[in-house]
């Protein structure tokens, strides 16, 4: 959220950011990952990771200025529409996570790979628990054991998302 308020002065090679068109790459990549939900994967379990959410968290952990925090809401709306989640679910949750990460950014002194993975694990867990609770409110109260494996799958898949995001960011910053 914060960095977007500080529009850097352009010109010098030190403060120069990516070209304006490439500022939208993070949001576009999250949309692309969200749209993986149209893949013809017919599963009897809901254990596949939520690619859009993993990309969102990976981008936000890599860069605080990937997007303004409110942009997570429209991204969440598209997530809800594409995945069939109750509309408003990710619209509420994703900006909340962005604010939470802003707070965490102020508190943490050091950041390394393992801390990022732990943070991502916590947020993946929160996301799946929220999904489970909203499904229960929506008339489908399944046992928690039914959704617990998807937390594990999400945590294991996070490094892949982080790797993809880091590669995209390197390419984006080169432009």
């Amino acid at each position: 959220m914060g960095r977007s308020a500080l529009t850097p002065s352009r010109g010098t090679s030190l403060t120069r950011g990516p070209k304006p068109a490439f500022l939208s790459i993070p949001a576009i990549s999250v949309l692309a990952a969200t749209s993986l939900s149209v893949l013809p994967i017919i599963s009897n379990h809901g254990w596949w990771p939520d690619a859009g959410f993993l990309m969102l968290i990976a981008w936000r952990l890599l860069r605080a200025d990937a997007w303004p925090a409110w942009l997570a809401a429209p991204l969440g709306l598209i997530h809800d529409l594409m995945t069939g989640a109750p509309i408003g679910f990710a619209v509420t949750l994703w900006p909340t996570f962005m604010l939470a990460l802003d707070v965490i950014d102020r508190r943490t002194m050091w950041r390394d790979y393992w801390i990022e993975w732990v943070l991502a694990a916590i947020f993946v867990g929160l996301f799946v628990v929220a999904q489970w609770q909203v499904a229960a409110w929506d008339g489908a109260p399944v046992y928690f054991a039914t959704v617990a494996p998807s937390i594990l799958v999400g945590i294991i898949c996070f490094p892949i998302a982080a790797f993809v995001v880091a590669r995209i960011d390197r390419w984006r910053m080169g432009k």
Partner: protein
Amino acid sequence: MVALAGTRPGWSRRAQYGLFFGFVATVATIVVGLLMLILSLAAPQSYALVRGAAMDFASPVSNALSEVADTTTGLVSGAGNYWNAARQNGELKKQRSAMLRRMIEAKAIQLENQELKRALSLRERDRRTIATGRVVGSSFASPRRFAILSVGTRDGVQVGMPVRAADGLIGRVIDAGAFASRVLLVSDRANIVPARLVRGGLPVIATGRGNGTIDVRPLEVGRNPFRKNDIIVTSGTGGLYPPLWPIARIVRLDDDGAIALPLADPGQISFALVEPPFEPAAIAEAARPEDAR
């Protein structure tokens, strides 16, 4: 690596305001999201149009990709059929002749049934399949069990219609776009199907468990009536699902019920048939998933 500096605007008044309004905007979107969530939980049908449009938007991709996936899996499983073909052939021939005998018996029973119904002057409504589509997607990252079907309102599909495959019941339509529709599978926790045991005709209730299996309980509490490999079929109660559609096979017993596996696996079936509801009045009820209980 030192942590990201976070949000320190420094002395710039402009940056401070920018930060503050960014925060306000984010909180506002969270409030809006919360309202949308409450609306979609309280009145799911208020988003019917948007949801349908979103599915139509995605359907060409899903359809094209699912054809590719079908071809690939077909190549793999097709090769396996050549293994030990001669013995398989002999077994299949034996099965076929046994089936033919059973079929002739069944035809005789059907004839007798028709005559009895005529004698009782029961009238059967003409039932025609509304649309035939393919399962092109599913909710693979969610505790809900939905499938995406490649037919929509342009083919006559409406919210609430029951969907089946040749093997048995799949579920019912809960969102319909022009070219695609979303099906609530029988294995979803919110899908509760009035059913009965084929052996004995005892009325039971089939509830999804959210993991591809179904929880089956007898309507009357008492002795556990189930046996392994029992088949349950729809009873037609409630008017949504027509009677005598196969649903599931019992695979495990528990204290007062059983766990069953749906006979029609959405990942295996090639075609899904959308049928009219048994009693058309039931379609309004089915439009609200919570009230179907």
